[in-house]
């Protein structure tokens, strides 16, 4: 039925677009009203999801068919959790009276949501870049020189990812004139284009050695900005991998490396938000492995993991943001003993920590079990053991290190209180969701891409997981008691960003200097030959060749031309 009063149907707008448009009004709306305006925009955008599965908006332009709004079983869970995360961000940053970060945060979330609904590679590229350009302001908002430099490095990598995506799309389109975004084959006829797209996704998904930007930039953003950053970019990449590369074997190995390697960096990192950034990288690894397996159970695992991960990772970043906001530092070496001053934050942090560690009755457990079971089905035992090892690693850095060094360890002497009310409300909601999903996983399972009957709460799963976690915690206590657990010290941990932050300038600058030096010598030689040439010519023109008559320049040129004609004549006729 067509309602004549409404000239266009908002529900057929790409979700997220509404949020981007609303973001433009953010600077002109006074504080508090602005927060309500943003929540309303998010709600309106979420209402657009009610259109259900199908293609709802197509734009014919320049002979291309751009699918602006495609929804199906895979987009819905991502769209839902992105909306929830966006709303949590608004609540968490309620105390912030400046408009700039709110505008960036709302449009960033909107761009990520719009990207999830892109049905073709060009539309995906547009929103892919939009997430880069909007999110960089969350890092710049920190206002320090450090943050500014980190933001520029971040932007460089994000834009590079976008450029690779566009190049890949162009190559694919030139071969098959087909730009729709679906499953792609790395060894198919469009291998080059597909590889470019794969690497573009790999940068945003923080594959090993492409991950430097994540741990480099996220912890430099503001207390509220990091929370927003943690939700969208990387999970958009997981969505894109699940859409384009489900069942690509290589992802199993890549993902396994992603789960294991950051564990060792996180254990020695002193900046607790950077510890969480390494932990984020490790969590992405679980999702990438699941995408690589590609079975229905595994893809459900990847999506469920992304869903609950956004909540507990946001919760952990929120609790550390609250500590940063109250104390002014987030270095483990300068923190400790805050459990008395910030008990609510401490409880929320521990709920997040138990969720990410996948304790039974917490959200991580019901999601990670899917992936582990799917992995067990494949029979790739050593990857299974790597992921089991990484699970102990998660417990080490996110389950124990984060709450322990912030709230317990040794008294640090900071005098402070609980964070602003908005921060606490957002943490409370996220914590409730973490426990709620853990206790009642059915609603989460109902929105997963495939209808799979799965029961995480059987004796084997629960006791097995508890054994792993409890005995790992005993190992921690053992190390602390024996005073063998290394103390946190102010430091920086070298990661893959070392290659472009330290090595590239130090090798690159001398190398560039040498190349430029050789080039300068070469140019000087050319100049010398040219000058010599002219000097010789001048000498010939003006110096008498024979006798008293001096042949003029014109005569000489004419003689040369005639000679040339003569030679040409012989060549042509002969």
């Amino acid at each position, binding site marked *: 039925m067509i309602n004549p009063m409404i000239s266009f149907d908002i529900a057929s707008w790409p979700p997220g677009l509404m949020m981007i448009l609303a973001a433009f009004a953010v600077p002109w709306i006074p504080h508090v009203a602005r927060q309500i305006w943003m929540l309303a925009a998010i709600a309106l955008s979420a209402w657009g999801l009610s259109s259900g599965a199908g293609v709802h908006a197509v734009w014919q332009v320049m002979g291309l068919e751009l699918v602006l709004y495609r929804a199906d079983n895979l987009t819905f869970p991502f769209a839902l959790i992105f909306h929830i995360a966006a709303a949590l961000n608004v609540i968490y940053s309620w105390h912030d009276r400046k408009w700039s970060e709110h505008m960036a945060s709302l449009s960033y979330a909107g761009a990520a949501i719009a990207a999830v609904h892109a049905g073709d590679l060009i539309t995906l590229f547009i929103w892919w870049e939009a997430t880069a350009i909007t999110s960089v302001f969350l890092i710049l908002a920190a206002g320090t020189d450090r943050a500014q430099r980190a933001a520029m490095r971040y932007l460089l990598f994000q834009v590079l990812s976008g450029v690779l995506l566009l190049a890949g799309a162009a190559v694919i389109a030139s071969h098959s004139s087909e730009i729709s975004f679906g499953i792609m084959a790395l060894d198919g006829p469009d291998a080059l284009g597909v590889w470019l797209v794969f690497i573009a996704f790999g940068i945003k998904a923080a594959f090993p050695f492409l991950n430097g930007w994540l741990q480099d930039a996220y912890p430099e953003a503001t207390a509220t900005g990091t929370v927003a950053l943690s939700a969208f970019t990387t999970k958009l990449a997981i969505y894109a991998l699940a859409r384009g590369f489900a069942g690509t074997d290589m992802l199993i190995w890549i993902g396994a490396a992603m789960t294991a390697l950051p564990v060792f960096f996180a254990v020695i990192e002193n900046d607790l938000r950077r510890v969480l950034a390494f932990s984020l990288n490790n969590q992405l690894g679980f999702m990438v492995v699941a995408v690589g397996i590609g079975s229905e159970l595994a893809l459900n695992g990847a999506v469920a993991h992304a869903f609950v991960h956004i909540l507990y990772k946001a919760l952990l970043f929120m609790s550390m943001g609250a500590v940063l906001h109250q104390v002014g530092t987030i270095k483990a070496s300068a923190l400790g003993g805050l459990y008395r001053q910030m008990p609510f934050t401490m409880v929320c942090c521990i709920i997040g920590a138990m969720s990410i560690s996948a304790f039974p009755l917490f959200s991580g457990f019901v999601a990670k079990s899917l992936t582990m079971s799917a992995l067990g089905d494949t029979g790739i035992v050593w990857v299974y053991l790597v992921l089991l090892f990484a699970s102990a690693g998660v*417990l080490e850095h996110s389950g124990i290190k984060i709450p322990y060094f912030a709230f317990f360890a040794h008294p640090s002497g900071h005098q402070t209180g609980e964070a602003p009310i908005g921060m606490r409300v957002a943490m409370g909601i996220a914590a409730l969701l973490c426990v709620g999903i853990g206790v009642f996983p059915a609603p989460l399972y109902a929105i997963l891409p495939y209808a799979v009957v799965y029961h995480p709460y059987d004796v084997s799963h629960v*006791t097995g997981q508890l*054994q792993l*976690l409890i005995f790992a915690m005993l190992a*921690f206590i053992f190390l602390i008691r024996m005073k063998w657990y290394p103390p946190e010290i102010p430091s920086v*941990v*070298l990661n893959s960003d070392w290659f472009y932050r330290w090595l590239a300038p130090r090798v690159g600058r001398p190398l560039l200097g040498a190349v430029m030096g050789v080039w300068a010598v070469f140019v000087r030689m050319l100049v010398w030959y040219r000058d010599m040439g002219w000097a010789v010519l001048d000498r010939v023109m003006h110096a008498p060749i024979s006798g008293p008559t001096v042949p003029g320049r014109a005569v000489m040129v004419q003689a040369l031309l005639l000679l040339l004609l003569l030679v040409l004549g012989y060549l042509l006729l002969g």
Partner: protein
Amino acid sequence: MDEQKTALQRLGSRFTAILLAIAAVLVVLEFIFHRHGEVAAEDFPLFPALFGFLAFLFIVQVGKWLRVMIMRDEDYYDD
């Protein structure tokens, strides 16, 4: 400060006691119920417990070595 320190130590002792109790229950449960893992190795009695304990020690130990290799002063990148 000292008072806080003893409070923290008391908290730690209680926490340790609770953990040990849970661990004891888990060990007992292991021999009452038949627990089956996703892969064959996991079926070995107390495999997850041993794996978790050793993995944790391994991670911290590798961390100690890594401190020498990839840990630098805070102003390492500032030029």
